[in-house]
């Protein structure tokens, strides 16, 4: 096995995919989004839990490849007690990292452990897997602002 494969499937990623955090939809969310990747059937349903303008936590469920599930889990660790602007800032930073084709390190201040997903950006076919939960969060946020 090559080192690039090891950088794609880092230990942190494997741990999150085996024992995902905040897995299982909790009652009382303020908005929800379901995202599907039709090419491989990866699915994530993500719920926003908030208090006033603050997103206090996320809960989610889904199934799919190690990358999509680990990414949802890592995302749910990043989004704790943040206002909407701060959440959007993190989504934007993650998207930029995913589009970097391996040229960016990722801002750990913003993204925490989710920077380990940076290796995915070298595998164009897998970027969608990593983005799935983040797109779900963005979509759920749009629903709350529309409401």
């Amino acid at each position, binding site marked *: *096995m*090559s080192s*690039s*494969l090891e950088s*794609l*499937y880092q230990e942190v990623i*494997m741990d999150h995919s*085996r024992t995902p955090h905040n897995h299982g939809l909790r009652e009382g969310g303020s908005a929800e989004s379901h995202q599907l990747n039709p*090419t*491989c*059937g*990866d*699915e994530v349903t993500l719920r926003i839990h908030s208090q006033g303008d603050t997103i206090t936590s996320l809960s989610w469920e889904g*199934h*799919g*490849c*190690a*990358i999509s599930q680990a990414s949802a889990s890592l995302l749910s660790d990043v989004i704790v007690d943040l206002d909407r602007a701060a959440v959007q800032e993190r989504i934007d930073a993650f998207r930029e990292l995913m589009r970097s084709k391996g040229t960016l390190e990722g801002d750990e201040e913003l993204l925490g452990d989710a920077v380990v997903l940076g290796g995915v950006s070298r*595998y164009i076919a*897998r970027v969608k*897997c990593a983005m799935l939960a983040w797109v779900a969060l963005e979509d759920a946020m749009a629903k709350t602002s529309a409401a």
Partner: protein
Amino acid sequence: MTVPDASTLSDGPLTLAEVERLRADFPILGETVNGHPLSYLDSGATAQRPTHVLEAEHDYLTRRNSAVHRGAHTLAAEATEVFENARARVAAFVGVRENEIVWTSNATEGINLVAYAFSNASLGRGAPASSRFALGEGDEIVTTEMEHHANLIPWQELAARTGATLRVIPIDDDGQLQMAAAEEIIGSRTRVLAFTHVSNVTGVINPVERLVALAHAVGALVVLDACQSAPHRPLDLGALGVDFAVFSGHKMLGPTGVGVLYGRAELLDAMPPFLTGGSMITTVTLEKAEYLPAPQRFEAGTQRVSQAIALGAAVDYLSEVGMQRIHDWEAALGQRLVSGLSAIPGITVLGPPPGVERAGLASFVVEGVHAHDVGQYLDDLGIAVRVGHHCAQPLHRRFGVTASTRASAYLYNTPAEVDAFLEGVREVTAFFGVVPTLYPQSSERTSL
């Protein structure tokens, strides 16, 4: 430019030495992927092309390129001749006449052509000759649970447009068509029976003659999806008695952008067109047009000439090697795949168990590891496989999964490639740290 040199081919079964020589005809098989020699096990999606086919296209483009069936200059006449000659060779390859072969972009377009022609007939276009294709309420279109989306959605849409009902023949736990159900479903209301010859997921081979007999007994038309059979086994569409059949050039050593619709001559001549425009008419006024007979009636617009010519070269190559020999070689690879996979803990094969006839392919699920991750691991070893639902979501749903990994072989694959692939699959469970709870299917069959 030569087809495989006849002197290097034997009469008996394909041998490893012969296959090694044939491999040299496929430049891409010499590529390195991720530091490993490429093992291409994705021919079910698209096949690689031998130099012979690439050169035929190049030769045409550098020496003859021009518009066919139009213009009187020398190149145009010669282009028309080689274009029509390719049609004749493809027709002979599947045991039919050249006026029964319509060029399409691919199999998908072929099926849509038939469905839209039926739809137009249902609106009265081409009546009275076309009335045998007209569908309405009370009529039934029958297909199967194992179809590629290309042989399902066009029929869903046709049913929705005409008021006809779509019915589906189920499969059993081994992926085989339930023939008892087929006998019940195919009845006096059935107008169309559309099914695949060989499943692109399970490798199941359907009993074409029995299904044709059931359909013809009630006066229904048969549409055969030959995408996974025309490239891999001797095919005599005339003898099988199907009414229509489709296949794609890119799955049989030919180019993308060209496919074939076969239709029995009397049917094609009675059927209204789908696409209309230039090259398919006799007389046009501002109010209406008269159409050419088949096949030109169904070939509106400028044609994919170089691709059709290259497909002609591809069937020459396949015929030179011998379709029966190709079939036998791949059948052995298919058995090697399925018996090897079935012996690995945590693997469930979709489709027939080892020892039962199947095409040279196998799709499988690794317990606890998503197909995408399986494919990624194999890709790192230079092994190209397909992951996902392979355009057959209902079939995957029937097996209770959303995705699988598929290895599919062709005449250029070797037993050593299959063995390296199996070794890679064995490593997958270790790499992803999954403890399998399923045991080899030979000892305990698990239905997903």
